[in-house]
């Protein structure tokens, strides 16, 4: 079921950065890419359940703060050890300066 949820104002996340968003017991990571687009993935690393929002965004990569595992946050692809399982991604849109994610996707 499609369910768009307001996360924050677009300006709340710096370019090439990430923010944590918790909703109904689930945690997400919301990314602002260097080319001014927004993306969303599950908030926890698939390797050891560490919050990715504490990690480092480099171009289109999010690096986990604990073991430096890397994902392409645009499609959730794991980019090599120690992460082997892809991240789930969610649709994102910006309306009236607000970032919204579709958690039902």
């Amino acid at each position, binding site marked *: 079921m499609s369910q768009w949820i307001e996360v924050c104002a677009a300006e709340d996340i710096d370019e090439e950065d990430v923010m944590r968003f918790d909703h109904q017991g689930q945690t997400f990571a919301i990314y602002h890419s260097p080319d001014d687009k927004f993306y969303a993935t599950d908030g926890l690393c698939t390797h050891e359940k560490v919050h990715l929002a504490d990690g*480092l965004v*480099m171009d289109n990569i999010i690096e986990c*703060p*604990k*073991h*430096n595992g890397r994902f392409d946050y645009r499609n959730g692809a794991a980019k090599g*050890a*120690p992460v*082997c399982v892809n991240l789930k991604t969610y649709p994102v849109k910006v309306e009236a300066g607000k970032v919204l994610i579709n958690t039902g996707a």
Partner: protein
Amino acid sequence: MNVIATPRDYGLLGRDAKIAEEMGLASAQWYQCPLPRKRLKELMTRKDAPAIRDTLIWFASFLVSGGFAYIFWPTWAALPFFMLYGVLYGSSTDSRWHECGHGTAFKTRWMNDAIYHIACFMIMREPTVWRWSHTRHHTDTIIVGRDPEIAVMRPVMILKIISMFFAIPQTWTAIKSVLRHAAGRLDDEEATFIPEMERGRVYLVARIWIVIHAVVIASAFYAGSILPMLFVGPLPTMYGAWVHVMTGLTQHGGLAEDVLDHRLNSRTVLLNPVLRFIYWNMNYHIEHHMFPMVPYHALPELHKELQPYMPRPNSGIIDAYRDIIPALWRQRKDPNWYIKPKLPEGVAPVTAAMN
């Protein structure tokens, strides 16, 4: 007073592994000093320039020391050059393995990977196995039964520690491990931290290494000289190991086990620029464990940021060993004893699971 030694089970499949899980010490949440996200991002920024500069100096040092060792061989004049070459081969590779394994030395991924593989070969740490064991070391730092990289186990065996300075146990373990992996097998403990999909890579690298070592040994026989084996293979790993063991023992030696606060189980030591080049700033070890995404070149800055929350760092190797040697000596008979670093006033340590 008689002290009763509690036998510890450091095996990853043993009694203490189960206890660690029951106590919430496995894959637990660790204490982190407060640091504003903006500042942390600045410190985490990846750069190629510092590591390229250091790697060029590193390669040049290999060439100069190795070149003069070759020229002066077989006279005594070759000895100091072999000593330098050995430290580069058997010690500086420890920090290159480490930093490139984290992927933080260079911004460019392939550069990290290239230096990682070179360093792994020299220090005889199989790249895939050690990548995964180090991952576990960061998840469960000095948690008995969980951390496969606890260098000093209690009760402490002094002779074993002395032999580590010549990489005797490390090399013996590495040779057995490479042969086992070349035969297509992992042991039961390795199977706990190396995922299925990574195992083919383990076997492939082990077979490549055996071919390289066989070529070196064959060339020594062909030349009728041990010289090739002094440059490549287990010998330089062993005769050059002492510096990385000297610095490596400062990381956790004598400190607490089974805590969730790196300030209690890790140590920061201030070193001179030469040792910091060899060790690539891993002497800022509490800082590294607390924020492993900060590259080696930014660790001195991170150290300054975190000082209000940190124990006093040791002022040098001698100062650190003034703490470590008596502690290890005592832990021969009293494995429950450990050094308790003094934190700044008003800063509380975290000793139990927070989640």
